[in-house]
């Protein structure tokens, strides 16, 4: 990359620089040099030179290994998607919020609408509103969706071939997709026309939140079933979004986040191959949702490293030939846990820096947290401001004019390699312990994340880590941001009433029979090789107007499961 003469000059300059630091600062000024590390614990130098990137390969965006970007043109051709995850109350309230966000600038590729819908806790676990376990959380932090009617209220008026619909569920992605297919069918759409996303990564939530469900091994089967169905019938649908976000929220370092995501990707792909799928047929529809915290350059390096690592793993390990299998698409969710309830307007600054890092790293899509999220669910003003952060970066700063603007930076290129190196160590550790699923089942991953969270808190309490407004630069008078609120009890009553009407207007015998077929299909689904019969049964059940809770209930009746995940050992 560099000529011998250039490297010689760098060596000479570096020696002079060292001498000046030593004589001018350490000896004359008695300055004690600080020891810096990144969040992942990578020790930093004070300045980087060509000597640190001697081995750097010449790369360009749109070419293997895609570190610099997956397409020849980046934001010049199409800006990143501003996909704001949203939802609360019944599907009616959520629909209003979707409309509001679209009006304010939430947008997908080529100006097309996006609907990244967060569902409420009962929906995400497959409890209908009339289930006693759902009481008290209906519509909280997400939309209550249990019937085709609910989907209609959410999505009426949107062209489903053009709207990127992405319901954000835990382990209920499979019955939710069945319902969506039947809803779309009723509106005249064929499966192959539908364009959107299932998260299909319940295991990430099993280890990062304390909510259970079917056992991890069963959840893996549900994921494989979904991927198999989409690969056969829904070529435009993004079947799996591997989530690193929640590891970041549990204080995993950037390198740990990549290591966990990639080790789970490898295991999932191996299971898909067992289910009879050819790598190039389904790998192109993987993508990731990553966390971006406050370590600006390390987060950029992490996103660049992930693209390169993905491409190399898919080519070398799985023999992928289709370039789409190697071009990894990334959505970033800015770190909600970086936000403070104290001096909440400071959170706009935090979000702006996180989005800037995201954009400098050239990802495809971004969700920006609202400044009031440490206080409660986001208000309209706060979500609009989150969209504005993106628009200011896109339209005012000019940073989107050039692809991978930090490519070739001695520091960023060095750091990108270092993050990859650290992430590979995490992957090796996980594989040495028996792989991702095994590390869930033996409690290792959960233990790692819990100890990271405790460590983070200790660093704040000891003052080792500074959070402005929380443990430094505090104010006596707190600025009050009014919390967003809605009528929880009324939402619950309405949701239950709607569900009652839905069940009154269907053929209950037909619904019961179709649920029996779901149970039978689940019973027969013992190994990954047997994937493929459950989804058709669920689609039939959705046609018979079964609810999300009934379909998930039928699956869980067969598979069993747990209410919470903490302390689980296989």
């Amino acid at each position, binding site marked *: 990359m560099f000529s011998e003469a250039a490297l010689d000059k760098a060596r000479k300059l570096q020696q002079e620089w060292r001498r000046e630091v030593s004589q001018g600062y350490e000896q004359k000024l008695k300055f004690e040099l600080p020891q810096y590390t990144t969040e992942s614990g990578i020790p930093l130098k004070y300045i980087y030179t060509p000597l640190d990137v001697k081995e750097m390969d010449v790369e360009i965006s749109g070419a293997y290994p895609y570190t610099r970007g997956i397409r020849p043109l980046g934001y010049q051709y199409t800006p990143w998607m501003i996909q704001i995850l949203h939802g609360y109350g019944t599907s009616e309230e959520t629909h209003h919020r979707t409309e509001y966000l679209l009006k304010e600038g939430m947008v997908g590729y080529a100006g097309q609408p996006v609907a990244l819908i967060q569902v409420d*806790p*009962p929906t995400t*676990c497959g*409890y209908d509103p009339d289930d*006693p*376990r*759902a*009481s*008290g*959380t209906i519509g*909280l*932090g997400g939309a209550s969706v249990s019937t085709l009617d609910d989907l209609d209220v959410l999505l009426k008026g949107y062209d489903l071939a053009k709207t990127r619909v992405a319901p954000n569920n835990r382990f209920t992605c499979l019955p939710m997709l069945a319902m969506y297919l039947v809803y779309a069918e009723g509106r005249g759409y064929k499966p192959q026309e539908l364009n959107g996303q299932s998260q299909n990564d319940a295991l990430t*939530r099993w280890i990062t*939140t*304390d*909510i259970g469900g079917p056992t991890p091994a069963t959840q893996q089967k549900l994921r494989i079933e979904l991927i198999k169905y989409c690969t056969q019938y829904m070529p435009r649908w993004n079947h799996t979004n591997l989530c690193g976000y929640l590891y970041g*929220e*549990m*204080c995993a370092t950037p390198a740990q986040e990549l290591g966990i995501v990639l080790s789970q990707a490898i295991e999932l792909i191996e299971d898909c191959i067992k289910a009879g799928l050819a790598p190039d047929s389904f790998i192109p529809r993987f993508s990731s949702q990553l966390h971006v915290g406050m370590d600006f350059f390390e987060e950029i390096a992490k996103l660049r490293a992930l693209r390169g690592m993905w491409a190399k793993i898919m080519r070398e390990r799985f023999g992928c030939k289709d370039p789409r299998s190697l071009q990894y698409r990334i959505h970033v969710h800015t770190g909600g*846990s970086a936000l*403070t*309830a*104290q001096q909440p307007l400071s959170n706009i600054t935090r979000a702006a820096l996180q989005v800037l890092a995201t954009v400098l790293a050239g990802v495809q899509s971004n969700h920006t947290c609202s400044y009031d999220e*440490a*206080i*409660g*669910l986001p208000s309209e003003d706060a979500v609009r401001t989150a969209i504005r952060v993106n628009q200011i970066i896109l339209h005012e700063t000019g940073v989107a004019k050039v692809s991978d603007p930090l490519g070739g930076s001695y520091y960023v290129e060095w750091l990108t390699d270092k993050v990859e190196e650290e992430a590979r160590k995490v992957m090796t550790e996980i594989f040495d312990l028996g792989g991702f699923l095994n590390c869930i089942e033996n409690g290792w991953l959960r233990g790692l994340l*819990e100890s990271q*969270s*405790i460590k983070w*808190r200790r660093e*704040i*309490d000891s003052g080792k880590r500074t959070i402005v407004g*929380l443990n430094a630069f505090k104010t006596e008078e*707190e600025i*009050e941001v*009014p*919390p967003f*609120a809605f009528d*929880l*009890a009324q939402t619950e009553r309405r949701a239950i009433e709607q569900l009652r009407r839905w069940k009154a207007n269907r053929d209950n015998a037909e619904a019961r029979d179709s649920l029996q077929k779901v149970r039978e299909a689940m019973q027969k689904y013992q190994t990954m090789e047997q994937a493929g019969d459950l989804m058709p049964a669920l689609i039939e059940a959705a046609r018979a107007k079964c609810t999300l809770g009934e379909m998930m209930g039928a699956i869980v009746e067969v598979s069993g499961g747990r*209410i*919470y995940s*903490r302390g689980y050992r296989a």
Partner: protein
Amino acid sequence: MSSKVLLARFALDGHDRGIITIINACREKGMEVIYIHFSDPKEIVKSAMEEDVDVIGITSSMGQHLYIAAKLAKALAEDKVDIPVIIGGVIPTIDVPKLEDWGIKKVFGPGTSPEEAVNFISQLTGARID
């Protein structure tokens, strides 16, 4: 004698990063911690009586704190149980007076240090902490 604390999390509120640090801090101070999940606040009262705890601590991060506190206050009154209750999590300051009206002894909002909560628990129980 060491204090015995019941910490409870609403089953469908998956946010447990806060409560993990509290469990850890309590145990480090030599307190005995019982950690439960509940769907109905009556389950909290039942556990609290069975385990004979000194303090009940609830975590809430999704905006269900008023719902839980109201039901818990009623359940405690019905069973004539007099155990102090504290609550922590994502709770807007505007809701604090209401929670205090329902008998919540103290509300710990976002960013509270675990030490602050642990110190308050030991004050409540009169236990000496190291």
